[in-house]
């Protein structure tokens, strides 16, 4: 990270001279291009490729606001909605009957999303980017569901309140045609199943993802509860 003499962050630089690292940064550059084409919030950057085995990427820092450091679902509900809306704005342009769409791969409020203001999130850290890799809705669900991991899952009232919000977010995604039907019935298990089957997309970093740390029972309980709520919502609609 580069700061100016007044201690203000000017840019974030990443570089690598290892095969894997160069590949990741190249993916990040592709991801940034893809994102900039679709998003109203742009990220400006410079790439330096002096040889095939070295790359450096310098991303200009944004005037961002600090978001609360306590990463838990209940603290972030407003931010989550803001992220889901932005996700739809960006990914919606992808929807044209394709089975798979672009993958960010690590869309997370814990470090990979900046906020210019509370309604303007910017997605950063595109190193797992793949243009055609995941069912639509995957990244948004990852961002939403991983926050549940940081909550006390034994606090049933809290969990249910959060899951009601998850359900609302899923309905919103669906209304914007940004939720693949594969996620309708068992979002968490479908997500984790997808990740395990496509672990090459994350390489050695696959183990770091919070959604993969839920036990099978926890994941089933979450999915079952989400199903129950969504059927209630459907019933209410009828």
């Amino acid at each position: 990270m580069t700061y100016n003499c007044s201690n203000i962050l000017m840019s974030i630089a990443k570089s690598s001279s290892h095969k894997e690292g160069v590949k990741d940064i190249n993916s990040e550059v592709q991801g940034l291009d893809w994102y900039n084409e679709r998003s109203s919030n742009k990220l400006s950057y410079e790439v330096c490729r002096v040889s095939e085995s070295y790359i450096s990427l310098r991303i200009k820092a944004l005037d961002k606001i600090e978001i609360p450091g306590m990463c838990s679902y209940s603290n972030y509900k407003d931010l989550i909605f803001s992220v889901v809306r932005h996700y739809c704005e960006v990914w919606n342009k992808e929807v044209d009957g394709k089975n798979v769409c672009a993958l960010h791969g690590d869309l997370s409020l814990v470090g990979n999303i900046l906020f210019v203001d509370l309604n303007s999130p910017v997605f950063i850290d595109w190193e797992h980017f793949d243009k055609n890799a995941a069912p639509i809705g995957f990244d948004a669900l990852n961002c939403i569901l991983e926050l549940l991991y940081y909550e006390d899952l034994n606090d049933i009232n809290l969990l249910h309140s959060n899951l009601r919000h998850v359900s609302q977010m899923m309905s919103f995604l669906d209304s914007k045609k940004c939720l693949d039907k594969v996620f309708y019935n068992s979002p968490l298990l479908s997500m984790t199943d997808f990740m395990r089957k496509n672990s090459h997309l994350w390489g050695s970093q696959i183990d770091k993802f919070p959604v993969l740390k839920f036990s099978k029972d926890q994941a089933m309980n979450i999915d079952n509860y989400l199903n129950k709520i969504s059927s209630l919502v459907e019933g209410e609609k009828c």
Partner: protein
Amino acid sequence: MNNLKKKLAGLYPTKDHAGIYKSGREGYWSNLSKKENKEFLAVISSQGARQAVQAVIPKYEDMIFSEKREAVLELLDHSTPGVCIDYGCMWGVLSIGMAKRGHQVVSVDQTYFSLNFLKSRIEEEDLENIHLVQDDIKLTNFNNIADYSLVNGVLEWVPVTQEVDVNKYYQKGGDVDSYITPPRKMQLDFLKNVRDGLKEKGKLVLSIENRNFYQYYMGRKDPHENLLFTTFLPRAISNIISRIFHKKEYRSHIYSFRGMKKLVKEAGFSEIEVFMAFPDYHFPEIILPYSKAGLNLYDKYPNKNRITKKQKISYYIEYFLTKYLRIKALSPAIMIVAKK
């Protein structure tokens, strides 16, 4: 490239079958004994560098291959390729790093084993821009050829002219050399020689431990002499301790931030930028300017080697000293970028 090759051929008329330029000045400095090095090289020829390291010296795998070791190179601008001299290149992690960044690299070391290992790595990485030179780094005669010079973990060893097998050197006794020139004078002369090797506005990158690293005051041993308190005590007293316990002179002088900057300045460098590296300069997690602004940026950082309770407590002390008391002089390591 041809120009550089011509210059090297002029300086070193002899080149051996492995393509290593030879000065006729040989020496030995290695973390391995000569016997271990022979065994290691035999395995390299049959299995390749990476596998050989994993099989024979696994504890050095990160030291040789970790990308983190190249972090110091990011203090330079790599947009224009230049010539770089890596003084005391050892296993060549920084030479490889600079070569991958597109520069022509002259890797100088007195230890033939190390150069041979680097040769295998160059072949495996398919690099054509590294030139190996076996020479005493104090006696090289490069003149205005380099845009960059690397002195990484080398300066402290310059005053030790005997052969060094690090593990033996740590022990009591060992070879006793009769030295005439004081360590600082040797280090200064070496840095002057490094300066001569640089073109105008060429840059020096230097990394070294901080003499006043807080852990030395807490009972961590001198990393070069394996003795308590010798890093920060007055040199004369350190010398007495070394003579009593190791029967040899205390030579591997390291410096405080101020002392290091002064030495580099005395060697004729200008525009000296000083950085502090955490948790060390080998595998830096954070590199910050040695200034108040730099201190403001200090924050928690991961370290996979922070395992024992003692190491964790030690880290909390560092955090307290740096974050809250805002003391920068006790940071672990010094990095310097300076211009000719």
